[in-house]
C-alpha cells in the first residue's frame, strides 16, 4: 500500500516511514501543507495520513480541497486536539478517520488498513465468509459449518464488523467507536470480555480458532 504522510515533525515522519516500511507499505513524506497538497494531488496513493496543524496550510483545508476536486482517497487525520467536536469538524471536512496524538502505531496501522479496504468496500456484500463461518446481514443469521449460532444484537454487530474487516487488525477503540459509537478510551478490559464471549460462541465445539488476539494491538478474525 502506498501512503502519503503529511507531517511537519521530522522525527515523527521518519518514524512513520520506517514503521510503514516494516509493515510492508511505502510511505512518502511531505513536511508542510503546500507540498503535501501538491503531492496528494499529483501522486497516486492508497491512503493519506494528514496532520491537522501544519506549516503554511492546515490539514483540514487540504482534505477539503482534495474532496472538492473529486479526489476521494481515504484520509486519516492526526491531531493533538482530541475533543469530540474537533473530531466532528475533522470528519466533516472530508476526513475518513481521526486519531489523537499520541497514538500507538499499531492503532494507526490498523485504521489505515481498514480505510484502504473501505475503498474496495465490502458494504455491498450481504453475506460475509471467514473460513466456515458465515454471516448473513439481511437475515441476521450466523452459521458455522452450517450450524446456526445465536448471537445477541450487539454480538452480531461486533462479529459483523470483525468479518467485514477479516484479516485486518481491529483495535479496542475501533470496536468501541464502530460497534458502540462511543469515542472514549475504555478504562478496563470491557471490550476484551465482549470478545471472549463472542469467541466462546463462535469457537466452542470447533477445533479451529478464528478470532485471534494480536498482542499489543487488538484482534483479528481470520481463517
Amino acid at each position, binding site marked *: 500500500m502506498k501512503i502519503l504522510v503529511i507531517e511537519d515533525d521530522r522525527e515523527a515522519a521518519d518514524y512513520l516511514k520506517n514503521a510503514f516500511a516494516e509493515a510492508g507499505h511505502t510511505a512518502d513524506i511531505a513536511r508542510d501543507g503546500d507540498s503535501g497538497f501538491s503531492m496528494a494531488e499529483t501522486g497516486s496513493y492508497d491512503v493519506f495520513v494528514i496532520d491537522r496543524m501544519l506549516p503554511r496550510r492546515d490539514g483540514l483545508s487540504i482534505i477539503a480541497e482534495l474532496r472538492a476536486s473529486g479526489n476521494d482517497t481515504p484520509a486519516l487525520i492526526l491531531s493533538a486536539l*482530541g*475533543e*469530540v*467536536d474537533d473530531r*466532528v469538524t475533522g470528519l466533516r471536512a472530508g476526513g475518513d478517520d481521526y486519531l*489523537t496524538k*499520541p497514538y*500507538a502505531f499499531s492503532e494507526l496501522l490498523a485504521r489505515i488498513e481498514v480505510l484502504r479496504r473501505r475503498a474496495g468496500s465490502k458494504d455491498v456484500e450481504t453475506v460475509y465468509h471467514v473460513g466456515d463461518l458465515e454471516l448473513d446481514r439481511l437475515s441476521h443469521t450466523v452459521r458455522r459449518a452450517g450450524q446456526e449460532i445465536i448471537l445477541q444484537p*450487539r454480538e452480531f454487530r461486533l462479529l459483523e464488523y470483525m468479518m467485514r474487516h477479516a484479516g485486518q487488525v481491529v483495535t479496542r477503540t475501533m470496536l468501541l467507536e464502530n460497534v*458502540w459509537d*462511543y*469515542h*472514549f*478510551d*475504555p*478504562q*478496563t*478490559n*470491557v471490550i476484551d*470480555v*465482549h470478545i*471472549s*464471549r463472542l469467541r466462546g460462541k463462535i469457537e466452542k465445539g470447533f477445533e479451529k480458532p478464528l478470532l485471534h488476539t494480536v*498482542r*499489543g494491538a487488538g484482534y483479528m478474525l481470520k481463517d
Partner: protein
Amino acid sequence: MARLLSILNTTAARLSALYLILFAVCATFLVIYMTSLSARMLVGQTREAINEEVRGLDRAYRRGGLPFLVRVIESRARQPGANLYLLADANGRILSGNVESLQPGVLDATGWTERPFTYSRFGEGEARLEPGMRDAEHKAVAVVFRLPNRIIVMVGRDLGEPEKFRTVMQRALVVTLAIMCAGALLIWYFVGRRALKRIDRVSEASRSIMGGDLNRRLPVSGAGDEFDRLSDNLNKMLDRIAALNEGLRQVSDNIAHDLKTPLTRLRNRAEAALAGKSETAEYRAALERTIAESDQLIRTFNAILMISRLEAGYSAEATSTIDLRAILADVVELYEPLAEEQGVALDAQLDGAVNLQGNRELIGQALSNIVDNAIKYSAGFGEKPAVQVLLDTGPNEIRLTVRDNGPGVPEADRRRVTERFVRLEESRTQPGSGLGLSLAKAVMTFHGGRLELADNAPGLAVTMVFPVEPSKRKSETVFKKRDASG
C-alpha cells in the same frame, strides 16, 4: 496641589460645579424677582397711605379752612415716624410741616412725583450731617397739590422701609450665594475625595494583586452602592480566575507527581532490560510492558486534559437533545459481560426515554467510569456483589444513581475521591488512573449538574444529578461562542 487638581478633575467635581451654577442662577433669579415684586407692593402701599392722608387733610381743610389744616398738619408732623408734610406759599417758601429742605423742583409740578427725591427733616439734619456725606437726606415719594389760594401742600412718605428691604434682600442674596458656594465646595471636596479614596484603594488592591498577591480582594465597604457592586463583580471574577489558576496548578502538580512516577518506572525498566544479558524473549516482554505502560500514561494524560478543559468551561463540546436512558442502556450493555465475568450482578431499569440537553459522549464516558468503579470495587466483596443503576426523574432534577455493595467510601473521604488523582490507599492496588470520578464530576459540572456520593449501607451510591431543563445556559454560551468565532 496635584491632589487638588486631581479632585477637580473628577466626575463628582464636574457635576458639583454644574449644579452649583444652576442653583446659583435659580437663587439669584428668585431673589431678584421677589425683591422687585415686594418693592412694587411696598410702593403701592406707600401711595395708598399718602392718598388716605390727603383725603384726611382735605376734610380738615373743608371743615376749618387753612388755619385748621395747618394745625392738623403740625400735630401730625410731630408724631414719631410721621409722614412728610409741607406747606409752602406760591414761591416755594416753607410755611409749615416737618420738611426742612428738599430737592429743588419737587414742588413745581402737582400730582405724584415722578421719581423718588431726596429731602431732609427738621431736627435731624444738622446733628447727623457729617462732612462729605449727605446722610441726612432720605428718599421719599410725595404728592403735591395747590390749594385755591395758591398755597402748596405736599404729603410724602419716606422710602426708608422699601429701601431697607431691598438692601436686606440683596444682602440675603449675597449670603445665600456665598453659603451655596461654600457648601458646594465642601461637598465637592468630601464626595470627590471619598470617591477618589475608594478608587485609590481599589487601584491599590489591584496593583498588589497584579504584583502577585493573588489572594487579595478589592475592598467592599458594605454600603451596597455602585462601587461595592463593581468591586463585588471584580472579586467574583478574581475568584474564578483564582479557581482556574488553582486547577492549572493542581494539574501541573499532578502531572509532576503522578506522571513522573510511571515515567521513571518506564525508564528503569528499559534501562534494566538493556543492562542485563537478556534473551530476546525478555527484551520482548520488557518492551511490551513498556508499551502497555505508555498507553496508560497517554490515557491519564488525556483524562487530565479533558478534565481541565471541562472545568475551565473552555470547551466547545456541543450539546444536543439526548436520551439519558439510551446512554444508560449502552453503558450497562457494555459492562454487562465484564460484571458477569467478575461475578457481579449488574441490574438496571431500561424502560422509558429521558430526554435532556447534553453531550452523549461525555455522559457516556462519565457513567461508564462510575459503573467501572462500582464493578471493580464490589467484585469479590461480600456474598453477592451487585451493582444497580437507577434513573429517577423529578420535577427539578434527573438523578442517575449507581449503587454498589462494595466496601464503600468513609464519609470523610467522599469529597476527596472526586479530586484529581485521589485514590484511597487501600485501593492503590486496583488498576486505573484515579481520574474516573474526577472526570465524572467535571462532566456533571459542565452539564450544570453535580455528582453526589452517598452511603449505600453497605457500599457506595454515586449519583449524577442533572438539572431539569439542564445546561440551557451552557448551551447558549456554546452557541454564543460559536457565533463569535464564526
